[in-house]
């Protein structure tokens, strides 16, 4: 959740309108996660199957074909659905209980 101070009724746009485009980015939904996809870099072949499979578009990539690489999951938005782990042909993603990562 964002730490922004919540506004009063006189300060917000009327009718619940959102007047700022792309503001959903501010809504950090990663804290809904109960499982974490742990990326095992040594097993990853950067086959590019997982990035487009993520329903939250939170597996970032770098570079262009044929030298494209995936990067670490964006845990601000990853909800731990496990689709990436399912689709990975190289078992390079393991789902682990999120509770083990909470400091």
């Amino acid at each position, binding site marked *: 959740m964002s730490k922004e101070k*919540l*506004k*009063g*009724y006189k300060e*917000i*746009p*009327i*009718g*619940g*309108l*959102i*007047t700022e*485009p792309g503001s959903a980015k501010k809504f950090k939904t990663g804290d809904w996660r109960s499982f974490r996809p742990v990326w095992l870099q040594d097993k990853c072949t950067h086959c590019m199957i997982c990035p487009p499979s993520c329903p939250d578009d939170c597996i970032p990539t770098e570079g262009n074909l044929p030298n494209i690489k995936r990067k670490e999951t964006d845990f601000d938005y990853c909800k731990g659905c496990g689709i990436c782990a399912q689709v990975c042909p190289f078992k390079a993603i393991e789902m682990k209980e999120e509770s083990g990562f909470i400091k």
Partner: protein
Amino acid sequence: MAKIKALTGAEASAEAMRQINPDVCAAFPITPQTPVMQKFAEFVADGIVKSEFICVESEHSAMSACVGSSAAGARTMTATSSAGLALMWEILGIASGLRLPIVMTIVNRALSAPINIHCDHSDSMGARDQGWVQIYSENAQESYENTLLAVRLAEKVLLPVMVCQDGFITSHGVENVAVYDDNKVKSFVGELKPYKPLLNVDDPVTYGPLQLTDYYFETKRQQEPAMEEAKKAYQAIGKELKKITGNDYGYFEEYQLKDAKAAIVVLNSTAGTTKAVIDKLRQKGKKVGLLKIKLFRPFPYEEVGRALKNISSIAVLDRSESFGANAPVFGEIKNALYDAKSKAKLHSCIFGLGGRNIYEKDIEDLFSKLLTNKLKGKEYIGVR
């Protein structure tokens, strides 16, 4: 110059819509739809108005289409009645919550069960807390003029408005209606300047996002000052409209009320019947009067309290029930009189459910009971 036309109440509302020439009308084309839309569809088919007419598959869809079109930035109107309004229920709150200035004619008719098509106010009174402004009309003339006022009011305060008239009694009864000059009316109504329209890609907005415990309450909190604003704007816009029509647009009409000892409070067509009885009784020296509510939401508590404060005996007539509680109009009048510290004897009278007729004789009897303190508790007029 006004033209006098022989119109039903429904046609009078359609006539207002012809002059307003809204961008979009969405309506369900069969019963419980009203002749308002039937007549308006003729105007569309004949090319007399430029409106986009969307025939939808239900009243729920009709109001949904209106919500979409109004959010897009189009001046949007519709009409419905009875079960149609009931089916719109969910979307009524969306229209007001999103602050969309939709104007809708309501032809007041009973709700099932039992199945009935005739006049009572259960439909719109049931919707009184859905955040819409509600204006009630005594006759075809008022329906016509209130519709003109409603468009300006809705767009000024960004709230949807219902303009109500009695089913059949008003909607299907032919009266002489003064229809004002098209150009004058058009310049009164003006052009819609939409607030944050969805279709404006230069200023992108999102309508209808999820707001949970963090912001829902704040968004609803905004609707209250909007209603306060509506109360002020109603009068200001009414004054402007008066320049064309010569008529007053008070929150209510007082008829022989100033020196009255006994008064009836009622809205819509029964006010007309009550006036006829008052004229008769006044000739016999009886001090009787009427307060006819026009603006029901927002409700003018203070002003009503002041107008009724010194009257000793008052009957409030409701054409709908609130089972197990005070009837809708009665409850509001009681609130107003409590605030005004009135000591009036106040009576609730239910009448006319499912179109049961109320006659001059009934109202005469009611006045004589009021004047002689013979009313006890809640009264049902015309029920066996």
